C-alpha cells in the first residue's frame, strides 16, 4: 500500500502583519519520511511560515494540506490530533511539572479518559493511565532522559530541556514533527548528538520539518530544503543543488 509520497502540501500561503508582507505566495511540498529544512536570512519569514503550519497564526491567503486534508484555520490542538506537533524556539516546557509529567501531557490528544473516568477510576481509565506512563517512560529513554524522569523540567540542563521538548512532541505520535531552531545555543558535541537523535526519529517513521541557522547541521542532515527571502520562496530541492543556486548565494552573501 504505497501511501501518497507527499505528506504536506503548502499552496500559495500569504500573511501580512499590519501592511508588512511577511509571506507572499509561498508553496512547497514535504514528502513522507523526509527531513525538510527551512532556511533563509533573518526576517525572511521562516518563523511566520512555521507558526502558520503549526496553527499559531492563521494565513491571510492560501492553504496547506496534510495527507490531502485542509489544515489552514485549524487550532494548534486540532493540528496535533491530525499529526502535526512542534517544539519552540525559546523552550516552552511546563516548568513546575516533572520531566515525565511533561511527556505524559503530550499523550493527552491520544487518550480519552474523561472527568467521570478520573473520578471513578474504572479499569479502562487505570489501564490508560498505565499506558500513558509507560509510553512516557519509553520516550524519555528514547531521548536519553530516563534518569531525570522525576526532576522538575525547570531544573534540567539546557540541552536536556531541548530533548525533553522533543520527547513531549513525540508523545503526540506526530506524522510531522516541526522543530524551531533545535540546535540553537548548542555546542558541536550536543549538536552532533541532536543530529543522531533526529536521524533516529526519521528512521522510526516521523517526517521532520526544521528551521535552523546552523548551515553545517542543515546541509548534513536534511533531504530537501527550501530557502525563503523577504517572504518569498527562492529555491527548493536537495541541499547540494540549492547551494549552487545563484539566487541563494546572493540572498545569503549579498550582491558581489
Amino acid at each position, binding site marked *: 500500500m504505497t501511501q501518497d509520497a507527499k505528506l504536506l502540501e503548502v499552496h500559495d500561503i500569504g500573511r501580512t502583519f499590519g501592511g508588512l508582507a511577511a509571506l507572499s505566495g509561498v508553496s512547497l511540498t514535504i514528502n513522507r519520511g523526509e527531513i525538510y529544512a527551512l532556511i533563509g536570512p533573518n526576517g525572511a519569514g521562516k518563523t511566520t511560515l512555521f*507558526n502558520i503550519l503549526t496553527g*499559531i497564526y492563521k494565513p491571510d491567503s492560501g492553504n496547506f494540506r496534510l495527507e490531502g486534508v485542509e489544515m489552514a484555520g485549524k487550532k494548534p490542538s486540532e493540528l496535533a490530533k491530525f499529526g502535526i506537533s512542534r517544539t*519552540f*524556539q525559546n523552550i*516552552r516546557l511546563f516548568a513546575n511539572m516533572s520531566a515525565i509529567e511533561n511527556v505524559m501531557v503530550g499523550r493527552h490528544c491520544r487518550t480519552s479518559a474523561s472527568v467521570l473516568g478520573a473520578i471513578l477510576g474504572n479499569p479502562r481509565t487505570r489501564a490508560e493511565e498505565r499506558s500513558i506512563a509507560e509510553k512516557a517512560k519509553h520516550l524519555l529513554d528514547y531521548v536519553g532522559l530516563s534518569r531525570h524522569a522525576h526532576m522538575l523540567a525547570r531544573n534540567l540542563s539546557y540541552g536536556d530541556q531541548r530533548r525533553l521538548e522533543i520527547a513531549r512532541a513525540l508523545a503526540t505520535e506526530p506524522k510531522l514533527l516541526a522543530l524551531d531552531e533545535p540546535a540553537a545555543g548548542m555546542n558541536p558535541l550536543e549538536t552532533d548528538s541532536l543530529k543522531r537523535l533526529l536521524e533516529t526519529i526519521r528512521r522510526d517513521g516521523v517526517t521532520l520539518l526544521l528551521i535552523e541557522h546552523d548551515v553545517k547541521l542543515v546541509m548534513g542532515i536534511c533531504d530537501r530544503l527550501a530557502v525563503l527571502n523577504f517572504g518569498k520562496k527562492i529555491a527548493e530541492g536537495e541541499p547540494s543543488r540549492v547551494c549552487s543556486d545563484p539566487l541563494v548565494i546572493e540572498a545569503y552573501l549579498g550582491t558581489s
Partner: protein
Amino acid sequence: MDIFLQQLINGIVLGSIYSLVALGYTLVYGILGLINFAHGDIVMVGAMVTLTVVRLLSDSGLPGPLVLGIGMLTAIPACMAVGYLIERIAYRPLRNAPRLAPLITAIGVSILLQNLAMMIWGREYLSFPQILPTRTMAVGGASISAIQLLIVASSTIMMAGLSSLIRKTRLGNAMRATAQNPEVATLMGVNVNTIISITFVLGSALAAVAGMMVSAYYGIAHYDMGFILGLKAFTAAVLGGIGNIEGAMLGGLLLGIIESMGAGYLGTLTGGIMGSNYQDVFAFFVLILVLIFRPSGLLGERVGERP
C-alpha cells in the same frame, strides 16, 4: 435635552473622581502587577487626615481654599508614609513569591487600615464643613458647581503631570523600565526596589489628593469608604489598560459616564424592566464587551503572545 446634558456632566464629574483614584492605582498596578486592594483605603486615610485638619482649622477664620490646601499638605505626607510602610512591610518581601501571595497581604492591609481608621476616627460618618463655595454655573440648562469643575480640572492636570513625569523624566524612564522588565532594568543600573518604593509613595500621594477631593465634594468620609473606591479604580484601570496613565483617565471617565447614563436611561432603554438598580450590571457588561474586543484594555499595549 438639558437633562441629557446634566447626566453627561454628572458622568464626567463622577468619571473624574474615578480617574483621580485610578491614576494612583494604575501607577502602582503597572509596576507591581498586583491588584492593590489597599489603595482605596489609602484614599480613605487621605480623606480622613484632610478632614481632621479642616475641622481643626474650620473656626480659625482662614479662607476655605487655604484651609483645604493645608489639609491636603498634611494628608499627602501622611499617605506617602502609609504607602511606603505598606510596600516595605507587606509587598517587598513577597517580590519573588508566587503571584497571588501579595494579593492576600494587600487584602490583609486593607482590613487592617479600615479597622485602624475605625478606632481612630470612630464609627460615625464625618461630615466635611462647608468651606468651598457652592456657586453653580449654568451650562446650557444644566448646572455644574465650582467644586465639580475643580475635580474635573484637577484630575486632568494630575493625569497630564503624571504622564509627562512618566514620559519625560529620568525617574519616569526607570519606572517604565522596571514595569516592563525588572531583571533587565536592574542590569541597566536601575535600583528596582527604590523605584518601586518611589512609585508606591507617588501613588499614595495621588491617593491623598483623590481622598481629599472625594470627601470635599461629597462632604462625607467614613472608614469604610475605601473599598468601593478601590473597586471602581481597579475597574477603571483595567478598562483603560493596566499600567497605562492615559488609560486610567479614559477608563475612569468612561466608567463614570456609563454609570450615569446607565442610571439615567436604563429604564427608558429597557422599557422599565431594568432601571437604575442595574447600573453596575450595565457598567460591568460594557467592561466585558470592551475586554472581549481589546483583551488588554482600551489603551493597553497589545501584548502579542509571541511563541
